[in-house]
C-alpha cells in the first residue's frame, strides 16, 4: 500500500575484515517510491543492495523488507523481491524465451500462469522479435530488458536494480526509465543505483552514499532546500556568455563568489546575496566577453551532493586535526 514503509534499514553495517564497506546506514523507503541510490564506485552501494536481498549477512544493524527481517526471514523475502544485478546475469546458451521460462519456473510458475505472465512481459519489453535468439547474441540494451523481464516474472513488490543503465545507449536508457515509471505507477517499489544525476532527478527519493556512509536521504526537492546546500546570504546563478572557460577564471577571482563551475555553455555560481549581477557583467565586459545573460536558479541534485560531500570531508578533516 502506498505510504506504508516497504524497505527499512537501521544502523546497517558491513565489514570485510578491517574494511568497513557500509557504515551504519539507516533509511526508510515508502511503498511505491522510486528510490535512487547514488554514490561513487566502491562507496558501498552494491553491498547495501546485496544485504537487502539476503545475499550478504550484515555485520551489524537491522534491515527489513515489507516487515520481514533480511537475516532471518530470507524465504519470505525471496518471493517478494526481484533483483537485477550489475552484469544482467542471464544464461547465454539459452534463448530469450528459455531464459524467461527458466526464471518463471524457478519462482514456481507453471502452465497457464507462466504463459500469461511471460506473454505480458514480452509485450511490455518488446522482446517479441528476439524470442528465439540466444541471450549471448543480444546487444546491451536488449540484454538488460531481458534481465528485467526475468526479474519481474514473479510479480515482485520490490525490484532492486544495480546500475541498470551502465553501458547502454541513451535511447535504451530512456526506455528503461519509462518502464520503471510504469511499474512504479502499479505500486511496485523500485530501488535503483546509478551514477547519472539526470536519473537521480527522476526518482521520488534519493540517497547519497560516500565513503561507506549515507550522507543524505530524502525527496529531491527537500534536499535542494537544505540549509547546508543554500547557505544563508547566498544565491545560485546561471551565467551564459561567450568564452565560458575564460569567463570562469575571471569570475573565480571575484570577491563574493564562493563556488563556480562550467556547465555546458554556461557557468553555475554560488555567490553572496550582496554581489550584484552588474558587478559580474562589468567585470566580464572589461575582458571583452559579451552576450552575458544572468539568471537566478535553484540548486541541482549535483549541487546538493557536492555541497554535502564537501561539508562531510571538512568535518572529517577537522575531526582528524
Amino acid at each position, binding site marked *: 500500500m502506498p505510504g506504508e514503509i516497504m524497505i527499512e534499514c537501521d544502523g546497517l553495517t558491513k565489514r570485510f575484515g578491517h574494511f568497513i564497506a557500509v557504515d551504519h546506514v539507516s533509511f526508510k523507503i515508502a511503498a511505491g517510491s522510486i528510490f535512487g541510490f547514488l554514490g561513487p564506485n566502491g562507496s558501498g552501494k552494491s553491498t547495501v543492495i546485496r544485504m537487502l536481498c539476503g545475499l*550478504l549477512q550484515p555485520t551489524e544493524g537491522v534491515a527489513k523488507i515489507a516487515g520481514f527481517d533480511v537475516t532471518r526471514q530470507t524465504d519470505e523475502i*525471496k*518471493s517478494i523481491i526481484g533483483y537485477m*544485478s550489475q552484469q544482467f546475469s542471464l544464461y547465454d546458451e*539459452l534463448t530469450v524465451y528459455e531464459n524467461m*521460462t527458466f526464471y518463471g519456473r*524457478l519462482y514456481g510458475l507453471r502452465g497457464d500462469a507462466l504463459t500469461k505472465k511471460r506473454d505480458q512481459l514480452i509485450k511490455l519489453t518488446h522482446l517479441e522479435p528476439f524470442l528465439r535468439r540466444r541471450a549471448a547474441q543480444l546487444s546491451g540494451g536488449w540484454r538488460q530488458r531481458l534481465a528485467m523481464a526475468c526479474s519481474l516474472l514473479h510479480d515482485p513488490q520490490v525490484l532492486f536494480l544495480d546500475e541498470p543503465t551502465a553501458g547502454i545507449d541513451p535511447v535504451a536508457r530512456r526506455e528503461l526509465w519509462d518502464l520503471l515509471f510504469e511499474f512504479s505507477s502499479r505500486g511496485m517499489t523500485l530501488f535503483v543505483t546509478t551514477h547519472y544525476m539526470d536519473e537521480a532527478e527522476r526518482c521520488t527519493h534519493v540517497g547519497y552514499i560516500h565513503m561507506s556512509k549515507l550522507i543524505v536521504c530524502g525527496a529531491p526537492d527537500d534536499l535542494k532546500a537544505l540549509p547546508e546546500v543554500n547557505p544563508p546570504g547566498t544565491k545560485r546563478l546561471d551565467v551564459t556568455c561567450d568564452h565560458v572557460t575564460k569567463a570562469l577564471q575571471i569570475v573565480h577571482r571575484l570577491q563574493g563568489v564562493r563556488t563556480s563551475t562550467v556547465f555546458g555553455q554556461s557557468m553555475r555560481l554560488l555567490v553572496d546575496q550582496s554581489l550584484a549581477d552588474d558587478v559580474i557583467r562589468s567585470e566580464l565586459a572589461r575582458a571583452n566577453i559579451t552576450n552575458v545573460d544572468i539568471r537566478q536558479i535553484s540548486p541541482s541534485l549535483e549541487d546538493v551532493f557536492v555541497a554535502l560531500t564537501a561539508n562531510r570531508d571538512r568535518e572529517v578533516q577537522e575531526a582528524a586535526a
Partner: protein
Amino acid sequence: MKSPFRGFVAMLYKEFIAVLRDPMTLFFMFFPPLVEMIAFGYALDNDIKNMSLVVLDQDRTVESRELVDRFANTGTFRVTGEAQSLEEVRTIMRRGKAWAALQIPPDFTRELHAGRTAHVQVLIDGSSSTPALQALNTSLAVTLRQSVVALLQESGRTQVPVEVRPQVLYNPALRSPNFFVPGVIGVVLQIATTFASAMSLVRERERGTLEQLLVSPLSRWGLMLGKLTPYMCIGLVMASTLFGIMHWLFLVPIAGSVLSMFVATIVYVFTLLSMGLLVSTRAQNQMQAMQMSMALILPSVFFSGFIFPRETMPWIFYEIGFFIPTTYFIELMRAIVLRGASLQEFWVNVVVLIGMGILLFMFSALRFKRRLG
C-alpha cells in the same frame, strides 16, 4: 510447507538445454576419455612376446641350432641377429638392440653327448623388470624341459613323474585387456564426470548467475540435484560407449549381467558427481576447480588397483585404496565382467559406493552457502 526440492524442475530444464547447447563441454567430456580408453587399452599389455634375442653360437652344431629353435618356438623370443664375440653381444645389449642374448659355448655338444652338464649362458637386460622376468622364466623353462627329456630317455621312462594340468579360469588366454580394460573404464569415467560437475557451479559463480539463483527461492537440494541429474545421464551414455569399446574393440567377453554393470555404474557415477559438486562448493574459479578435482582423481590411478594389484602394495597404500570409490567400482567390474559374479555376491561394494555417494552429496549440499562472501 515448502518442498525441499523447490526449483529442481527449473534447474533440470535449464541444465539440459545448457549442456546440450555447449558442444565444447560435451567434446571435452567425451573426447579425452575415449582417447584415454583406447590408448590405455592398447598400451597396458603384460603379454610379452617376440623379445629380440641375439645369438652367439660358438658350437655351430645341429644340437646348438636345435636349442636356438627351442628358444624361438616359445614365442617369447625372436632371433634378431647373430654375434661373433661376447664383446659384440655386450655392445648390442648396451645399445638396447636386444632384450636377451644366448651364448652357446664351443663344448656344448661335446659335453651333452658325454653326459656331463652342458652350460649355456643367457644374458638378460634387467633395466626393465617385467620383460626381464619373463625372459628369465622362459629360458629356465626351455632348458629345464630339455634336461627332463634327456633324463627320461636315460632312465627309460616315457612319462614325467609329476605333471601339472593348469586350468586358467575366467581369462583362459590370459589376455591383458581382460584385466585392464574394466579398470580403465573406472578411471576414465571419473575424469569426465568429476570435472564436469566441479565446473558447473563454479562457472555460475564466475558469470554472476549464481547471485541471481541465490536471490530466488531455489533450495540447496533443488540446485544440487538439478546440477547432478543431467551429468548423470551423460555419464551413463559415456559408460555405455566405453562398455561397447571394451566388448567390441578389445574383445573382452562379458560373463555377468549387463544390468548389474549398469546398476554399479549408476551408483559409481553418482558418487563421482557428488565429489565434483563438493569441489564446486569450495572452488572460487575454474582453475581451482580443475586443480582440486585433479588432486582427487590422481590417487585413484595409483591406489585403486587399476594397474598394480593392491595386495602387493605396502599396507598404507593398501588402506588408502579403501577411501577411493574407484577401488570398489573396479572390483565390481572385474567380478561382473570377467567372473560373471552377481551384485548380491558383491553387495558390500555396492553399499559402500552408495554410502560414499550419499555422504558426499549431502555434505556438498549442506556446505553450499546460500549467501555470498
